């Protein structure tokens, strides 16, 4: 493989993504613990109450099924630590995509350029999917998971493609094609549940949308600028 593969370029992307991802993931965890997690815990009180109520109605066979649920971290420090781990995985994963984009474009990189890549990531991975599927607190009725994941994926791919064409294409015809692509997932429409309902009050759902929007703005701008910064540093 030696000579066949530019190991230095690979290492540079991975190192920048790892540094930026760990730092941005930790910052996201702090912001999340301050506002987002409180709303999740609050909503789970309603979710558990609703589940307990329906368990009274249902047969004992279903209750037994409940007891065999998979392991989950206990509330408190353990849950926070595992959430931090998941946040960092997400952050490094997103960082690798940003770093790949920066490398592919091959232009001078610094934290300012990275900030723009982060802004694009925020639009692609948070804003566009949220327009159809707003972040939801636990206990919210929703369409089948597989349908929502598929729409999320289509939306992200189309938004990323559309945005790249809009920004990087040289001819206006291609730019218009890019702009049109941005709208396609929203014309298709996100999968919706048969009945919109939630165990938690609507105020909590609204507060959650604001809280996640703020947390993800902070996260993406930090991740982007740090990825740009470390990509330059590790040149």
């Amino acid at each position, binding site marked *: 493989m030696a000579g066949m593969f530019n190991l230095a370029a690979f290492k540079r992307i*991975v190192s920048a993504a790892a540094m930026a991802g760990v730092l941005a993931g930790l910052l996201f965890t702090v912001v999340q613990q301050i506002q987002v997690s409180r709303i*999740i815990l609050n909503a789970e009180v309603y979710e558990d109450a609703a589940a307990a109520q329906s368990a009274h109605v249902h047969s004992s066979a279903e209750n037994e099924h409940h007891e065999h649920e998979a392991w989950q*971290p206990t509330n408190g420090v353990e849950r926070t630590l595992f959430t931090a781990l998941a946040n960092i995985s997400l952050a*490094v*994963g997103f960082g690798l995509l940003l770093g790949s984009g920066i490398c592919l474009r091959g232009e001078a990189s610094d934290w300012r350029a990275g900030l723009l890549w982060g802004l694009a990531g925020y639009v692609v991975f948070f804003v566009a999917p949220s327009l159809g*599927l707003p972040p939801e607190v636990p206990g919210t009725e929703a369409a089948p998971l597989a349908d929502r994941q598929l729409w*999320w994926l289509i939306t992200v791919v189309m938004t990323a493609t559309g945005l790249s064409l809009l920004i990087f294409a040289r001819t206006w015809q291609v730019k218009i094609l890019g702009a049109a692509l941005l709208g396609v997932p929203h014309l298709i429409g996100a999968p919706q549940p048969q009945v919109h309902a939630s165990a938690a009050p609507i105020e909590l759902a609204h507060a959650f949308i604001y809280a996640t929007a703020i947390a993800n703005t902070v996260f993406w701008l930090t991740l982007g600028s740090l990825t740009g910064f470390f990509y330059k540093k590790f040149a």
Partner: protein
Amino acid sequence: MSSIPGLLDNVDSQSHSATWKGKILPVMLAGSLGLVLLYCAAFAETPALHNVAHDARHSAGFPCH
């Protein structure tokens, strides 16, 4: 095969083989690594992975449950 104008100009202007080894392959490998991390943290339905990443998925706006 012509690529989309202006999108990957620097790819077109260099020798194909050098660009492939120097840029495309590392980017594909790093990008795939990123996708694996994202899949595990955000999409995998394995109960343990779901429960560990539950709050992260809700916070980042991924479909959950």
